Every structure is written in C-alpha cells, then in structure tokens.
C-alpha cells in the first residue's frame, strides 16, 4: 500500500453560530483520485479551504499532516509551496490577460530587468501541450470557452509543480465533451506523473468513472470512505450516505388548510444578466395555493434563487419571459417596489449581502421595506416605528438588548429572525423564502419553522427554497425538484423522500451529460 500523502485529523471549524466541520478525518494516498461528495453545506468546500490555507492555521482545530510533516498553512502561498494547488468552482482567471500571463500570475518569470516574456510564453506552451490545450498562449482568457479556461487553470497548477490537485466541482460549468476530456486528463496525470487529486463533485457518474476513493461528508462530519477501485460503488449507496439523516421531530406540526391558487408562475425563462446566452431558468411553471408551503429542491446553481429573484420585481436576470399571476390576475412587476406593493416578499439566502443593512439598527431594518406604514407625508413617526419593531422582536423572540441595537451586533440566528421580521412587517400575501434557515442553529430553526406555519395559517402562500432535504420534507405540502434551470419533478409530501428527490436530481444531471 502506498504511503499516505495527506492526513487531516480531527478538523473542526466553527463560524459564528455554526459548526461547519466537526472532527473531520480524511486520508488521501499518494497517486489516487479521491472524490468528496455531500449535500450543499455538508462542509466540502470548507474542508478544502482549510487544507489549502485559505482558512489559516489557528482558525480551525485539528492537524494536517502532508508527506509525513505537520503543516501550519497561514495562506495559500504556504500550501502552494508544497505543491498543493486548489482550483475553485469560480475560476480565478483575469479575463483581459492572456493565457500565458494568467498561468504565471503571481509567479512571473522574471529575467534581468523585468518579466522575460519569451520564457513565459515558451513555458506556457509546454504546459498547455501537457493538458492538451491547443491555443496561442497570447490569446486573451475572455476569448476562450469555459472548458478551455478550466484547462488553463490546470496548466497553471502544473507551473507550480503540483503534487496534490484540489478541484472544486470542476465540471459544473462544462459540457459533456469537455467534462470527459478533463476527467481523462486527471486519469492521465495519475498514471503518468503520479499527481494526486481531490475532487469535489455532485455528478455521481463522473465520480464512479474516475475516483479511486469516495469520502462522504454530511453536516460537517465524515460519514465514510468508500473504495471504488474494485468494482463500482452503486449510486444509491452514495446517495444514502449523503442524505441518510435521522428524522427526529424537528418540525412543528401543522394541519394543512389549503385554499385556491394564489401564485401562478407560468413558462418563466430567465437568462444570465451578463452572459445573456446562458439560460438559468428554463420554461418553469410553478404554483402555490393559499395556506400552502411549497418547496423547491435542487442543487446550488439549479436556478432556484434566480427563479425567485426574477419573479420578485425582476431584480435579477435578463431577457425574462413568462407570466406571473396573483389570484388569477396577471401582474407586471418591474421593480422590487412593485412586487412589495403587490404583496410579494422575497427573503434572500444571503442575509448579510442582500438582506440586511448591517450598519443600521434592528428597528431601521425591520421597517425599511414598508416605511410608509409608519410614516405620513414622508416623515417617519418614530414611536409607531418603534412599536412595530418591539412587536416583531416579541413575536419572533429576537434576542437583542434593545431594538436600537445595530444588526451587525446580533448573532446569525437573530439576524435571520430580523430578516424574517422585516418581511412580515411588509404584510405580504406571498412569501418566497430562500434558504430561510441557512447558518442558523437548531433552536432558531425550529422557531423559524413555527413562524412559517404561522404565516400559512393566516392564509399566506409560502414558496420555500432549501438545500436541506429533511427541511423540505418536514415543512412542505408539495415539493418541486429543479435541476439545470428546469423543473424535473413535482411531488406531494406523501410521495417524497430524500432518495427519490436526490435520484431525480442525479438523473437530470446525468441526462444533461448524455444528451
């Protein structure tokens, strides 16, 4: 048996309020391709960021032993010096520099008195040959496709004498042909140069094709490591490992009281705001009834957030087409203000980035979206505003010494409650919740579920995006499954299970692979 190249022992990483990694162990042998799988938020990317020094030594607990030596990386340069190179899902290339310049960025080939361009491009060509990239090294990155850009990243890794290559969802943006090329390239490197590879992926067929070992992460813990060298590990086995979670009574009970259709989205299509050729939401039709909680399951990038944000006053996307009806009435929502005025609310998945104004107080955040409710002729009535804030603080048990406290001083769970309170204050009929419990501890989750139940019992319609399948199964009356911008399934609660939903998603990505 080969020497273990890398051993990560007892890695624990905590973010404020959340344990992202809990005592994770990972052993990678020299010269193997090691796949890491798990649901969104299972801790895969966090683990790789710990390994590559993006989260520096001291910000996590546990040991990293690489080539028999304990390592304490303080930044990414430290790990690269030892031949550990990470390629992120979002490629880190500068679009207006050439292939060669990108490959040696931060590692410039200097000669006497500056950069030696001849050497740069000569070396670049050599490495490009190794990865099978047939382009002029002076071509600008923006002029080549995503597949080739991925190859440039790998060629760039080669310039750093890579021994351990980490790829975070390398094929998520690639078509089948490019994906296959990439996987074959990894195999070739393993055979010819003994490069070890850690690959994060959701595409189980790719993993089965290329991986020697498969480690499954779930909720920040290692579940098991499967050996894929002798015979293929069956896919259901992996899926079970990924989702197999105990379903204790984590959800408050609710007796569904479902009325008429309140929200109908029909033939909704959205393109990327910058790359207007990329279709993000593809002819989606969804409806939600009064008093109903409807879930949308899917992986990151399936188009769920884009769907909700484009419906919510077209705040995201380009070339949007399709119709939105509320209670049978067709609406044209041109801005977030329009959507709010028509009783829509969208609770973002990114509370710090898109949801809250952190430098403002709890009160100011809660009332921001409907200030007209506490003001007359453009002048805010501070007492009424204060009353409203106190009201929601009590209803949602937001733990803060004072509603004048700045939101930035609150814990993640309480910030999330402020965000929910803000949109409850807006008195919507239709609430679109995007990952409403992300980064929130178990207790606060339960409280938020209770709030959701309360909302639908008042006759509101709730559309809920979540990457946590148990949450969808526990909360929703009906679940849509989305993959690659399309609805690939619709299940009533009684028929839904984690295995079925995961199966649908995997089936869809595989479909995209073969067609």
């Amino acid at each position, binding site marked *: 048996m080969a020497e273990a190249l890398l051993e990560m022992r007892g890695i624990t990483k905590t973010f404020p309020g959340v344990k992202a990694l809990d005592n994770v162990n990972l052993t990678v042998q020299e010269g193997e391709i090691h796949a890491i799988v798990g649901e969104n938020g299972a801790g895969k990317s966090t683990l790789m960021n710990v390994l590559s020094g993006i989260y520096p030594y001291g910000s996590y607990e546990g040991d990293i032993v690489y080539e028999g030596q304990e390592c304490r990386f303080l930044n990414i340069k430290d790990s690269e010096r030892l031949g550990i190179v990470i390629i992120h899902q979002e490629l880190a290339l500068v679009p207006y520099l050439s292939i060669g310049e990108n490959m040696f960025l931060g590692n410039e080939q200097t000669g006497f008195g500056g950069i030696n361009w001849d050497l740069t491009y000569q070396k670049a060509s050599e490495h490009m040959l190794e990865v099978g990239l047939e382009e002029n090294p002076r071509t600008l990155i923006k002029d080549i496709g995503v597949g080739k850009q991925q190859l440039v990243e790998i060629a760039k890794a080669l310039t750093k004498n890579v021994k351990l290559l980490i790829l975070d969802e390398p094929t998520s943006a690639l078509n089948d042909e490019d994906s296959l090329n990439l996987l074959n390239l990894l195999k070739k490197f393993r055979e010819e140069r003994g490069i070890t590879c850690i690959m994060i992926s959701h595409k189980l067929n790719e993993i089965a094709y290329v991986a020697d070992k498969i480690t499954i992460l779930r909720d920040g813990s290692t579940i098991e490591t499967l050996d894929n060298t002798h015979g293929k590990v069956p896919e259901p086995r992996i899926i079970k490992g990924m989702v197999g979670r105990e379903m204790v009574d984590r959800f408050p009970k609710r007796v569904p009281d479902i009325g008429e259709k309140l929200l109908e989205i029909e033939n909704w299509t959205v393109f990327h705001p910058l790359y207007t050729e990329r279709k993000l939401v593809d002819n989606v039709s969804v409806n939600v009834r009064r008093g109903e909680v409807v879930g949308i399951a899917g992986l990151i990038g399936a188009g769920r957030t884009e769907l909700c944000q484009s419906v919510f006053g077209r705040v995201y996307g380009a070339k949007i087409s399709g119709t939105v009806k509320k209670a049978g009435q067709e609406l044209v929502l041109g801005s977030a203000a329009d959507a709010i005025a028509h009783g829509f609310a969208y609770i973002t998945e990114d509370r710090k980035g898109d949801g809250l*104004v952190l430098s403002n107080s709890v009160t100011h955040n809660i009332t921001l979206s409907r200030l007209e409710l506490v003001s007359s002729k453009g002048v805010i009535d501070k007492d009424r505003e204060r009353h409203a804030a106190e009201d929601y603080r009590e209803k949602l048990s937001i733990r803060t010494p004072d509603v004048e406290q700045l939101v930035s001083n609150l814990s993640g769970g309480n910030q999330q409650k402020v965000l929910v309170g803000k949109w409850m204050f807006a008195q919507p009929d239709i609430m679109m919740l995007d990952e409403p419990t992300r980064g929130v501890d178990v207790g606060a989750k339960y409280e938020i579920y209770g709030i959701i139940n309360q909302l639908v019992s008042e006759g509101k319609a709730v559309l809920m995006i979540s990457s946590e399948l148990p949450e969808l199964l526990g909360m929703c009356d009906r679940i849509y499954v989305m993959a690659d911008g399309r609805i690939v399934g619709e299940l009533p609660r009684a028929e839904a299970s984690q295995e079925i939903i995961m199966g649908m998603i995997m089936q869809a990505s595989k479909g995209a692979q073969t067609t």
Partner: protein
Amino acid sequence: MSNLKTSFSKNLKQFVMLITLMVIIIFFQVLTKGTLLKPMNVFNLINQNAYVVVLAVGMLMCILTGGNVDLSVGSVVAFVGACAGTMMITWKWDPYLSTFLCLLAGIVIGAWHGFWISYVNIPAFIVTLSGQLIFRGLTLIVLKGLTLSPFPKAFMNLSTGAIGNFMLEINPAALLIFTVIISLAVFFLQLKSFYHEEDEKFMKSLLAALLISFAASLAVFATIHYDVVTHITRFLLGTELRNVSSLVIGLLLAAGVIFIEIKRRADRKRKGYSYDSLEATLIRALVIAAGIIYFFYLLANYTGAPVVLITVGIVLLVYSYIASKTVMGRHLYAVGGNEKAARLSGVKTEKIKFLAYVNMSFLAAVAGLIFSARLQSASPQAGNGFELDAIGACYIGGASAYGGIGTVGGTLIGALIMGVLNNGMSIMGISIDMQQVVKGLVLLAAVAFDVISKQKISFPFLTRIFHRRTSAG
C-alpha cells in the same frame, strides 16, 4: 449604569470629535496668545467657514449613498458666483431674482451630474471630475477671465455683516413672530411626547404652547423694556456689550438646548426606551449650552452674530431633520449601508443617488452665493479646492468612507475642526504649504482612528512573524 454605558459607546465617536475640537481650540488659543478667540477673529472665522459647513452637509448626503464624493463643488461655487456677478453687476438684474436663478442653476447642474451617475452608471468620481473641469471652464468663459465687482448692497446684506442690535426698542411685529415660533415649537414638541392612543393630546399640547409662549413673550417684552440684559451685563462684567441682542440669541438657544435634552430624556424614560443617565444628559446639555453662550458672548463683544449664521443654521436644521426623521433620509442610509439590500427592499436606489447629487449642487450654489457675497466679487479662481475641505470635514466628522454612516452634527464638528485649524495656523503665520501638510495628517488620523476603533484589524504579516518565532523556538 448599563444605560449610560450603551449610550456612551454609541455616542463615543461624537464625544471624541467634540473633545478633539475643544482640544484644538485650546491648543491654538494658547499658541496664538489668545488671538483665536478674540471677538473679531471669531466673527471672521464664521464668515470664512460658513460655505464649508454648507458644502460639507451636501457632501455628507453624497457620501452616505456609498462613499461617493462630488469633486465638482469648487467649480460649481465659482460658476454660480460668476452667474450671480454677471446677472447683478453686468446686466443689473434684481438681486432676489438673480439669487433664485442661481439656485436654480445649481439644481440643473446637480441633475446633470445625477443623471450620469445614477441612470447611466458612470462612477461618481469620474462624472464629478469632469464637472470640475466643465464648470471651471464655463466660469472662465462667463467671466472672460476677469473679476466682477462690486455686488449690489441688497445682495451683500444676505450674507455679510452682523445681525443688528434689535433689542434696543420693542418691535411689535418681531415680537409677534417670536411668540408664534415659540408656541409652534412647544406645541409640536409636546405633541410628539405623547403616545398615539392618549386622549386630549391636542388640547394639552395647545395649552402648554399658549402658556409657555405667553410667558416667553412677556419675558422678552420686560427684558427689552427695562433693558435688563444691559443692566445685568454691566453688573456682572463691569462693561457694556456692543451688541446685547447677540447674547440674548445665545441665551435663548442655550435654554432651548437644555430644555430639549431634558425633555427628550424624560419622554424616552416614560415610553420605556433606553435613556441616558441624568448626569450624562445634564453634563452634555450644560457643556453645549455653555459653549453656545460663550460663543455668542464673544460675538456680542464685536458687531454681533453674523447674518450668515442664519443660513447655516437653517441648512443644519433642515438636513439633520431630513437625515433622521424622513423616509428619504432613511433610504439614504440604507442605500449606503447595503445597496443591494436596499434595492431588494423596494428602495429606488437610482432616485436616491440622483437626488443626493441634485442636492449637492444646490447647496454648492448656496455656498457660491455666500462666498461671492463675502468676497464682494465674482472671481474666476473662486472655490479652488473647496471640495477637499468639504470631503475632509465629512470624514473627520465621522462619516464612513464606504457610506451609510455619518451625521449632520458630526459633519458640523468636522467642518469646525478644519476651520479652526486653517484659521489658527494662519494667525500663527504658518505657511500655506505647511498648513496643507497638517490638514492632510489630521484627516488621515481621524479616519484611521475610525477604522481601527470599528474593526479588529489583523496584521497577517505580524501573525506570520509570530508563528515563525514560536515554531523556531
């Protein structure tokens, strides 16, 4: 005690600013051997810095929207001055009409900037840099490179000279206006202090307003009729003041500050909000009141309070009201604090930015009029570098360079710090070159203090050295 603590940490920045201002004043008072606070110098200080305060308030609104600044204000000041000069001096138009047209010109200029910034999405830095060149150029074209003077007297009265000694005799009209203002103020303050559901709040407030305003008018009448202030000052100081009215204005303002501070605290306590301790409230109120009285006492020793204080006072009041009490103000802070979140909350972010720039140029026009009235001429080089004074005042006054944080009060303190620095160093005979060095360092120090106190800055290279040492040893 915990209440005191929360309020103190919340107001820490403002306290520090205020203390810094006082330290700087005392510092220059000593170094200039008492010249800084001589009545005549205080009078000049105000006239010299009035335009900075007006510009800084406008700049604050821009900075709040996300750390954007307006580099064109110096040129707009010059351009508006040039327009005023051409209308009033060359064409001999009516001063009031000309003033109105100049303010209108400011709004149009602001709309021009705002259009490119918020609807075409060109960075504010570039648009206003272009504005700086455009309006400086237009100034030279309008003035043909020459300086126009003098302005008609009616125009100069708007912003130069002192408020006269109105306390010499009783003016029935003025007394009536005074009574009405006092009663309105009391009425609204009283009304606000009630809960919504309370009965008879209108009657109660009205009664309070009538009683207090009647008492106040009676007091004023008696004071003037028997010349009380003169008697008192003669008794206390042994001398007579040149302009007793100034001192009276100061006393009234000080009384107002103390009254409002105490009333606010009482209201908050009654409504169950967090409130400052009585000591903290009183100390703050008394310090501010003492400062105001001393300030107006100094002015009373000279020709009296400058007329321009009225304009500046109105600007400060109106904009602190907008910033803290209106939907518009709240949206400004939200856009600067988190533009995406604001947009997703239905805030029309483009409109807010647009208005911030329209307002900036409007206030630049106001400043331009004040400035040319003080210089009594329209000069092609007027307003050079004013934008930097205004921006500096905002940042020294605690505005965040990333937007969303800053107050009108802080900006006023920032502008005063800049003004005292300028004036103090000039009296000491420090060269302009050196003055700029000092001002630059003060600006950097103020912002550095802000940044460091707000976030725990980590110095990765220090950590690295530290770790190297431990692993080596």
